[in-house]
């Protein structure tokens, strides 16, 4: 059978670490991928939403008559006409939601610009928008509050009557106490702002619901967690789970923004059931930027104490995190953040408090990184401050504090159990790849020459948590010689169709082309969790690996039974079973003994990928433009199944991290309206022109807690890049006091002006 493997030039079974091209690409490059908007479902209607243009107000009336008369419009509804419409579902149940319902269509109050107020269902999207245009919404505007810290003050507008804007408060560690800070040899303090970001997958959200004759519901949705969506739909519409089918076709990117059971989805499913017709909603870009969820959005206050040698003694972090107008999703990333505040350092005392606060902004939710970037930024920016205070090189201060490899596994004061790795080596590799010492020399040369050019070098060491919850995996040998690999994960572009096949084919020792990956359909895969938190390979891949090994064992048992010998006498190699002089292929075994499928549900501990980033930047002293001259990324994501895919994830997340550092922020006016009239000309994604010279270096420490050894990949750039780039810019600008992302030209120019103002003030007596 090895001759069949010629396409990849690799022996069967030897697929780990191979750059195999992706299976899904064949259809995608031909335009034959199928995204929700591409599906043709007989009799399908299209929905459009009427959204609040104001951030906060009392809903006085929604007039629908004119819209109902628009040609092509099938129906128009506000909450008033749909008393049984279910409310939006939280990401996971939590008491913070008590009394804070998120009606799928606004009832008496609007709390963010972009909130759904009415829905139009029509023959096509054009006429649906005609209808939406004709709906008249009357709102009495109320004062809005946008900043989570301001929202905690006594005079802030109250979003939910009689309830605090602070919806929850969590923490880690014991309060360190003012005496400690007063007596600590060195203390540095800073405040950081994580602006709200729009995840901006190029395909927006999309949902199509078709009622079935048996009372069931079929849903096609651009989603990261189909089984959770099925569970929610089943529970709110009181349809048994086995009658709800969720299919996730090709997904045009997600980045955390497609994990939820959104209000729009519930409205569309409800109307499909009520009308007895399929209804689809395809989000447009205006809706995606204003009405979909945003990521990050928090204020951080950080204090770090050290001894005179720069050994970190204690870290305190206080965070006000905006959940946006409804807290259903935005509290979820905060736990990641709290757990990761030790970073890669052996700081003995850590105390952190985070308040989740409702504000009149678009609801926040996990966005690529989801709490990890916030933690890394708070730590890594402050470590640089400490280095500066002690006049130590930023690399040196990190060396003095890194958790040494021999200390791993290491439990942090925040309760994370780092599994394995070598943080000092990651730092050394990054410095070497960046040619750190030469850049420092160049920086000194420029300073001495006084030519005014501004060069900066920034480092960030990060550790992240990957994987959470269990995952389902099953492997089936078929009589036709093929294998099915069923996974509860659900690709949104990561390439599972090849990487999971590589895992299974390697475990079975068979040709990778014989393995077909099945996922993202709740009828085909009985259970699952989904793809987020860098968990697909770490957890889902490991479950498949175990299922494949289990299949070999099961095949041996059956063969033993078949021949009436003991299991120990049955050998297995490359899809063949050997029992004495007898040989049996897996397909033959299936033919003789019936279907052969082995399932596994695996729930390993979280893994902790880590790495180090170095950025070299130049700042235009006149205009404040930042140019990234070099970006080095050292990532250790454990065992690498397909380096091509891993590098692709690295580049993609590096660009998103660069977006956060330099370009991206959802802009609001004082009243809480988005300043996004020109869409993606206002909210700026990095383009090809913004791609800096990148160098990737890998380390590969297998995850000791799974038999496969993968740790998870995909979020590292979003975590490592912002502090590295901002540290570099701060270095170039002479460490200004209040440098906040995104580092627009104006931000840098303002920092330079402040510096020269401070200098001239120093000169004066």
């Amino acid at each position, binding site marked *: 059978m090895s001759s069949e493997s010629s396409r990849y030039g690799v022996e069967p079974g030897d697929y780990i670490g191979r750059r195999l091209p992706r299976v899904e690409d064949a259809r995608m490059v031909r335009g034959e991928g199928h995204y929700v908007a591409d599906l043709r479902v007989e009799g399908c209607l299209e929905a459009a939403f009427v959204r609040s243009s104001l951030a906060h107000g009392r809903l006085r009336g929604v007039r629908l008559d004119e819209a109902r008369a628009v040609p092509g419009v099938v129906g128009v509804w506000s909450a008033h006409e749909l008393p049984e419409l279910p409310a939006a579902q939280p990401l996971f149940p939590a008491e913070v939601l008590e009394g804070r319902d998120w009606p799928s269509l606004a009832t008496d109050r609007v709390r963010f610009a972009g909130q759904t107020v009415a829905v139009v269902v029509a023959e096509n999207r054009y006429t649906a928008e*005609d209808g939406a245009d004709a709906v008249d919404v009357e709102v009495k505007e109320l004062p809005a509050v946008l900043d989570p810290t301001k929202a905690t003050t006594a005079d802030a507008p109250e979003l939910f009557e009689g309830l605090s804007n602070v919806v929850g408060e969590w923490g880690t560690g014991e309060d360190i106490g003012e005496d400690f800070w007063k007596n600590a040899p060195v203390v540095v303090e800073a405040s950081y702002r994580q602006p709200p970001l729009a995840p901006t997958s190029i395909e927006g959200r999309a949902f199509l619901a078709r009622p079935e004759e048996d009372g069931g519901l079929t849903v096609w949705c651009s989603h990261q967690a189909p089984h959770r969506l099925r569970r929610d739909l089943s529970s709110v519409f009181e349809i048994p789970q086995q009658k709800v089918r969720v299919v996730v076709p090709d997904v045009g990117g997600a980045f955390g923004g497609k994990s939820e059971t959104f209000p729009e989805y519930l409205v569309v499913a409800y109307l499909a059931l009520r009308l007895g017709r399929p209804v689809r909603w395809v989000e447009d870009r205006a809706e995606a930027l204003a009405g979909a969820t945003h990521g990050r959005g928090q204020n951080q206050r950080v204090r770090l104490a050290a001894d005179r040698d720069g050994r970190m003694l204690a870290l305190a972090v206080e965070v006000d995190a905006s959940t946006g107008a409804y807290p259903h999703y935005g509290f979820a990333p905060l736990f990641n953040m709290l757990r990761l505040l030790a970073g890669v350092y052996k700081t003995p005392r850590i105390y952190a408090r985070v308040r989740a606060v409702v504000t009149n902004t678009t609801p926040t939710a996990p966005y690529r990184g989801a709490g990890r970037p916030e933690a890394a930024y708070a730590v890594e920016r402050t470590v640089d401050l400490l280095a500066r205070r002690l006049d130590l090189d930023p690399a040196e201060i990190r060396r003095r504090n890194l958790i040494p490899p021999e200390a791993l596994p290491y439990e942090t004061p925040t309760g994370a159990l780092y599994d394995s790795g070598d943080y000092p080596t990651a730092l050394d590799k990054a410095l070497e790849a960046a040619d750190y010492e030469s850049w420092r020399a160049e920086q000194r040369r420029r300073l001495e020459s006084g030519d005014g050019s501004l060069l900066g070098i920034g480092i960030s060491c990060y550790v992240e948590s990957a994987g959470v919850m269990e995952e389902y995996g099953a492997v089936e040998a078929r009589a036709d010689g093929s294998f099915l690999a069923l996974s509860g994960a659900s690709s949104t572009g990561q390439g599972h169709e090849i990487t999971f096949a590589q895992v299974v084919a390697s475990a079975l020792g068979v040709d990778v082309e014989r393995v077909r990956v099945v996922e993202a359909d709740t009828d085909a895969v009985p259970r699952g969790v989904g793809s987020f938190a860098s968990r697909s390979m770490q957890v889902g891949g490991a479950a498949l690996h175990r299922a494949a090994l289990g299949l070999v064992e099961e095949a041996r048992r059956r063969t033993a039974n078949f021949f009436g010998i003991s299991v120990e006498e049955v050998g297995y190699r490359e899809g063949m079973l050997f029992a004495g002089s007898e040989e049996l292929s897996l397909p033959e075994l299936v033919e003789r003994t019936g279907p052969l499928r082995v399932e596994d549900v695996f729930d390993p501990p979280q893994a902790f990928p880590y790495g180090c980033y170095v950025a070299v930047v130049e700042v235009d002293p006149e205009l404040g433009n930042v140019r990234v001259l070099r970006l080095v990324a050292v990532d250790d994501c454990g065992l690498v199944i397909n380096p091509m895919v891993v590098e692709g994830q690295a580049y993609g997340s590096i660009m998103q991290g660069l977006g956060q550092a330099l370009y991206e922020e959802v802009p609001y006016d004082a009243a809480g309206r988005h300043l996004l009239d020109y869409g993606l000309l206002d909210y700026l994604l990095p383009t090809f022109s913004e791609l800096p010279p990148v160098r990737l270096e890998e380390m590969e420490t297998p995850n000791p807690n799974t038999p496969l050894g993968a740790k998870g990949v995909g979020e590292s750039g979003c975590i490592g890049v912002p502090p590295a780039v901002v540290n570099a810019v701060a270095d170039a600008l002479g460490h200004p006091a209040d440098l906040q992302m995104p580092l627009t030209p104006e931000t840098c120019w303002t920092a330079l002006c402040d510096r020269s103002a401070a200098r001239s003030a120093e000169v004066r007596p």
Partner: protein
Amino acid sequence: MKPAPFDYRAVGSPQEAVSALAERPGEARVLAGGQSLVLEMNYRRERPKLLVDINGISELERIEEEGGVLWVGALVRHRDFEEPVSADPLGRLLSRVSRYIGHPPIRTRGTMAGSLAYAHPVAEWPAVAVALDAGIELLGPDGPRAVSAGDFFLRPFATACRPGEMITGVRLPLLGENSGVGFAEQRRTQASFALVAAVATLTVEDGTITAARIGLAGVAGRPIRAREAEEYLLGSPLSAEAFAEAGRRAVRETDPLPEPHAGVAYRRHAVGVLAGRALEQAAADLEGRA
């Protein structure tokens, strides 16, 4: 983001276009490149009842040079300027500026005249038109008329073009042998609008500046000429100090409107820097040919 309904009429001559526009006074719009108009229509901020498609009027695709003037028809696309359309330094200026507009597919469709008609406050062509005192040729129910660029732009997205009128062409003066050109722009990413931009031309005789033109975008409700800075340069040699000082003087002539992506102080500062850089480019352009 689907446009509201409209009627559509493809026309074959400017006269036919004007007659069509007259059928729906105030509710008809000219469709040329459509790269801004269709964007606005997809957002439903523009809801014309009638679109008059002038893309079939071949005479408006022409570029002609005669009597010291370059005439650019209303259908000349941004992309048509990428290779210089004139041996005069003006050709180099238009070429350089065109590379800053949108991106290649936008430049394939969008037109210079359409950009003037749209009058986005940081658009490149309006700044060029104002700097060069371009003449904008209009045709309406009462016949043709021309408006100088300085009078054409009123406010953001508002021009002297009346309902029922259309731009047929733009007249741009040639700069003459001893001229150099420059253009500098500040933007947040390569896919964003400019924050501010500066266009500069310099004409020199015997080492002395005899004519200077500076046009600025993004620092007022409309594109402006920095006349005080221009005057300051007259009689001066080509020098970095003079250009920097002209940039500083240009700043005094600005009065930016608030906008979401950069503050007034920054845009005033930046346009001064850019004006200086555009002038330096113009000088280098001159010297490069010398």
